[in-house]
């Protein structure tokens, strides 16, 4: 029964996806849509394989920016959340700002950052990714460190535990799932920010800038092929974050929602 359900869960979206591509292909051929209007999937796929090495190169540039930014943003975010949870007054000053910055598309700041570094530098893009990731991680991990069950705190106080012991044995373990939630949100956001920040000048070497340059040259199918590469890169980041979360929660045995 569960196996059949599982199979259905896989097969139905697959059939839908294939059907959608066939419909797309058919529509382009039937209505004789011009290539600059909409390229057919077959053309996009052949462009993808023809340009595979160039797409891979561009993906590694964008991917590296996203990865470096993701790691740096996470490290700084976690560090700052520890400081905020220790000094509540700072938290009440910074948390609203962090939430506000989280809600607006701050990646446009990359235009300002670009002015600060040389034209070929990848640093502005990486800083931009770090900033986006930083706020997501900061808000979530700070929540995990501070929103601890009252009963847990009372129990620790009844054992005369010090603040450091409460941090190590209650707050940090409590924040771990929050960190992985933050990573699951940050990973795709890092990739998107990495692409978008390429639209604001600098070297034309990443997936984002290749998409625009191909569109500028009316190479529509090639642009789509790079879009496909971008999708795959985003997916890869997301899947890795999901796998990491599963590994971590299995280690902590915190799969309590699935197996009650």
């Amino acid at each position, binding site marked *: 029964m569960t196996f059949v359900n599982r199979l259905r869960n896989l097969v139905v979206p697959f059939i839908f996806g294939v059907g959608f591509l066939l419909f797309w292909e058919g529509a382009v051929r039937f209505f004789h849509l011009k290539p600059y209007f909409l390229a057919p999937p077959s053309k996009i796929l052949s462009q993808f394989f023809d340009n595979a090495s160039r797409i891979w190169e561009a993906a590694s540039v964008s991917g590296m920016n996203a990865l470096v930014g993701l790691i740096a943003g996470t490290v700084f975010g976690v560090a700052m959340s520890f400081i905020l949870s220790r000094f509540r007054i700072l938290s009440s000053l910074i948390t609203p700002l962090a939430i506000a910055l989280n809600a607006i598309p701050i990646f446009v700041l990359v235009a300002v950052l670009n002015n600060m570094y040389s034209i070929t530098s990848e640093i502005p893009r990486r800083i931009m990714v770090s900033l986006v990731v930083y706020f997501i991680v900061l808000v979530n991990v700070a929540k995990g460190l501070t929103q601890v*069950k009252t*009963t*847990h705190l*009372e*129990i620790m*106080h*009844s*054992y*005369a*535990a010090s603040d450091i*012991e409460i941090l190590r*044995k*209650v707050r940090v*373990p*409590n924040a*771990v799932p929050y960190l992985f939630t933050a990573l699951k949100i940050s990973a795709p956001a890092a990739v998107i920010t990495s692409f978008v920040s390429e639209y604001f000048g600098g070297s034309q070497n990443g997936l984002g800038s290749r998409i625009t340059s191909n569109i500028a040259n009316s190479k529509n199918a090639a642009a789509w092929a790079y879009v496909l590469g971008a999708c795959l890169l985003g997916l890869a980041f997301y899947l890795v974050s999901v796998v990491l979360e599963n590994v971590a929660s299995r280690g*902590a*045995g*915190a799969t*309590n929602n699935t*197996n*009650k």
Partner: protein
Amino acid sequence: MSAVHVAGVSKIFNQGTPKQVDALVDVNLTVEPGEFVSLIGPSGCGKSTLLRLIANLLEPTTGAVTVNGKTSAQSRLDQDYGMAFQQAGLFDWRSVAKNIELPLELKGWDKEKRAARAQEMLELVKLPEFADLMPWQLSGGMQQRIAIARALAAHPPLLLMDEPFGALDEMTREYMQGELLRICAETKTTVVFVTHSIPEAVYLSNRVVVMTPRPGRITEVVNVNLGANRSEDTRAADNFFSGITAVREALRGTHADHANAGAVRGVEDR
């Protein structure tokens, strides 16, 4: 030396502000070693506050609390008591055994000694094969037994419990009451037990301390000794029912203070 001595204690929250609450006024209570004392009363009568004052999780506004002849602050530092709450409060990221070991970790015990004690406690609460499970794999009653095992892991002379069976169903609850009596008799632990269930207080206690709200204070102490060998038959015995009646009347103030009768109308007669 008494296990708990509360002398002239008052607790006022938000003193001097419009939100001032007189949680406890002039409370005096002495609990002897080995005694089982319940605190009962409607919401807002200060029973949980009194328990937290004994535990030194709160400081009294006036008066003094002594536990085992020491100040409550010192006895907390010495882990002279264990505590259990309505929520079992087990740590989801620790196995059952590691949960029980937590107070011992904080005392700086080494690993083998901790593991041996955890196993001993698991046998005490009759869950010896559950050491490596995670808390969420246990039922509510089992979780609460682990919480009791954790509270008693360091062999404290005093156990403080805040409605520990309040979230359990009636059947589990009665079973747990029997288990608690057995465990306390085996370990010779003194218990201060907060509840809002009259039968629970009567079944478990040597003395039931009846409290009323606004301001929170002790109105009466009912002696209910049902003997050392309480069993399921005790729940059908005459002295059980007379104990329940005595506590109920004390709560309603029929032979104490009629003015308070209105304030205690919300009491559950479970």
